[in-house]
């Protein structure tokens, strides 16, 4: 009964929740957490398609590993940026991040 479309729907729901978080939160760390949700939704899609459409090779799982690596790098650099801006502005509110505007 449960097949590939159900996994894709689950992944679409989690991805949409992540998009909603990115668009409506104003704490920078919350936005980074929502981006992590979106990356995880993509990973579910890769692994499910790997299992249900081509189970002779593990290429989908390999791409998921690379996405996890890139996500780890992204969250490390992103949090370092937020900490760096906080030292100047004393705020993590995205509305206060207007350093490049004049």
């Amino acid at each position, binding site marked *: 009964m449960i097949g590939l479309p159900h996994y894709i729907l689950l992944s679409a729901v989690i991805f949409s929740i992540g998009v909603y978080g990115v668009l409506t939160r104003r704490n920078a760390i919350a936005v980074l957490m929502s981006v992590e949700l979106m990356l995880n939704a993509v990973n579910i899609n890769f692994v499910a398609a790997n299992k249900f459409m081509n189970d002779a090779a593990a290429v989908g799982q390999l791409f998921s590993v690379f996405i996890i690596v890139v996500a780890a790098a992204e969250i*490390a650099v992103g949090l370092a940026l937020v900490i760096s801006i906080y030292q100047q502005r004393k705020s993590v509110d995205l509305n206060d991040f207007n350093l490049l505007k004049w």
Partner: protein
Amino acid sequence: MFEFSAFSLYDAAFLAIGGVTILGALGVVLFRNIIYSALSLVFTMLGVAAIYFQLNAGFLGAIQILVYAGAISVLIIFAVMLLMDKDARRTNLPTPRTKAWFAGGTITMMMLASIIAAVGFTEWPKTALQGVDNSVGMLAELMLGDYVIAFEAAAILLLVAVIGAIILAKGVENR
């Protein structure tokens, strides 16, 4: 046995894990205290790991638990603790502008509706495959074979990201 035995234990497990994961994801974006959001994110990551285990990708599930539920969540919680300067119950508020909130919700619902429609209109293969048996060995052969350049690039990316994160957070001393 029952006539409606098409509903197997596998399906029940998928529904339970998927429901828990979606609830965790909703908690990440709806809690007003960012510590609750971070703990909800850990919950979601564990749910995604359970889905990997269910999809016969045990190695990836182990990586997910180690990297996301272990390392990244600790990093996020440390950043939250370092940067929390006001009342904890008001740390993760939604945007105050109704227009922005409404636009975000509309874009999200439209995207979700179009994906659901696309999934509904597609013909899916009926066959149920078994999945990869020895995924660790196959991953190792792919990583050090066809995809070795991507593997090395990922290693360099991690090194650069670690050094960049240290420099960004600590600052460079001017001499």
